[in-house]
């Protein structure tokens, strides 16, 4: 199939977005939409700008980012280590398999109130919650990657006389990199989700707290303003991870199977 023209794609996309916000703005201005519940794009922008000027948005965004990043890093490191530990020991893999599956299948969002109870209203409970969400993701991805490493590829290098350490560094780690990166990529989104939900449940700072408390006061425009900030943050983080991924996986062929 012929690839669609770039200009057409961008123009159509822009049209859709502008049309959506235009309709929203017009609806609110003409009174078809109740501004109390639905807010109004122009007012959202104004409120967002006000938060930027006062610096408030940065304070709260930083709190959320800190919580998410701490949870992410802890979860990523421990997830990878756990996967290696289990892959190295068939005995413990057998022992722990049903326990891990059970822990995984509990909807962990439901545990958020417990974490707040245990770790307080501050940063710690959000970090722990983010950590729990990221841990499983990275663990499962890394573990699956380790199981998929081609034994014949490892054997070929082993016969050359590679030590265990060399096999790890030169074969196994590069081989699982795509898997780990896939886990980290979804982990970034998960860690933010963890921080936000943690703040909803009980907190006194952060974008999640901001959204939750504004919604309680029917400050709909403030809710959307905080969402704008959150959206910008996610886009920035995804860019970062995407760049990392392209760098690490530049050797990979592009298989766009569906295009």
């Amino acid at each position: 199939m012929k690839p669609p023209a770039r200009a057409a794609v961008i123009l159509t996309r822009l049209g859709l977005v502008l049309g959506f916000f235009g309709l929203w703005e017009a609806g609110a201005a003409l009174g078809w939409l109740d501004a109390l519940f639905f807010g109004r794009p122009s007012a959202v922008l104004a409120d967002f700008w006000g938060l930027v000027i006062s610096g408030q948005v940065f304070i709260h965004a930083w709190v959320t980012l800190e919580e998410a990043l701490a949870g992410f890093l802890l979860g990523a490191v421990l997830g990878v280590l756990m996967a290696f530990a289990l892959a190295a020991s068939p005995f413990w893999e057998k022992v722990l398999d049903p326990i891990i599956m059970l822990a995984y299948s509990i909807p962990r969002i439901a545990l958020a109130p417990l974490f707040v109870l245990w770790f307080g209203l501050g940063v710690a409970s959000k970090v722990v919650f983010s950590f729990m969400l990221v841990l499983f993701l990275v663990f499962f991805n890394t573990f699956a990657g380790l199981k998929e490493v081609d034994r014949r590829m490892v054997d070929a290098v082993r016969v050359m006389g590679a030590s265990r350490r060399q096999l790890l560094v030169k074969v196994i780690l590069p081989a699982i990199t795509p898997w780990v990166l896939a886990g980290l990529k979804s982990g970034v989104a998960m860690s933010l989700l963890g921080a936000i939900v943690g703040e909803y449940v009980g907190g006194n700072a952060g974008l999640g707290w901001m959204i939750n408390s504004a919604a309680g006061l029917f400050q709909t425009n403030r809710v959307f303003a905080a969402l704008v900030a959150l959206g910008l943050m996610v886009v920035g983080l995804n860019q970062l991870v995407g760049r990392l991924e392209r760098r690490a996986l530049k050797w990979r062929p592009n298989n766009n199977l569906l295009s």
Partner: protein
Amino acid sequence: MIRLEGIGQTFLAADGSQVQALAGIDLAVSEGEFVSLVGPSGCGKTTLVEIIAGLQKPSAGRVTHGHAGQNGAFGWAGYMSQADTLLPWRDVLDNAGIGLEIRGVARAECRRRAAELAARVGLAGFENRYPHELSGGMRKRLGLIRMLAYEPEVLLLDEPFAALDAQTREVLQNDLVDLWRDFRRTVIFVTHDLMEAITLADRVCLLSRRPAAIKREYRVELPRPRTSLEVQFSQKFQALHQAIRRDLMAEVDWQKAHQA
């Protein structure tokens, strides 16, 4: 010099039954000799090569080779199977140089030596390509030079060219013989292709049906250099081919008759 003494291998199959793949393999291969192993499919050729390489422990017998790191240590042999085991994240030179890298040679030097070998097998101009950017034949050539780069004493090849089309296979066979002539390594070459076995080797060993033992050996007294085209039309070649084929078919037929 490699000596196999009474090599036997018995597997425990998934259903709990025992599968005896090898029984009492005795074989001595002298320095610089090129030996082909042929035998019915499933008789235990891959098992035998993996045992020689040290990737499997035999349930009986032993392998001796006069090289450093006797028994259990790796690094004395080069090994190549039918599988594509190049590292997809390394370009041609980094793939070819990995054996040297493992020995502590600096990366720049690894790449320099790899580049010399790459040029020898027609990979010049592809030094910085990744494996997925190469044709099947080029990947096999890269596999060959990766195996030779660290100068192992013995080359163990398990149907390395089986997945290639006939023309490419012939080119690769010639590449291998050229490299073997220059490097003078001991080669053990497994194949199910009798033409290939005879064209390449000094000696062809026929394995019996499972459990495999060496059934017969044939000296290939054809002058070198042999180009496959010329040699395969010679009287001597055809007589030898027929003789081995007859013996091989006897094993295959027996296997068929007793398997159903």
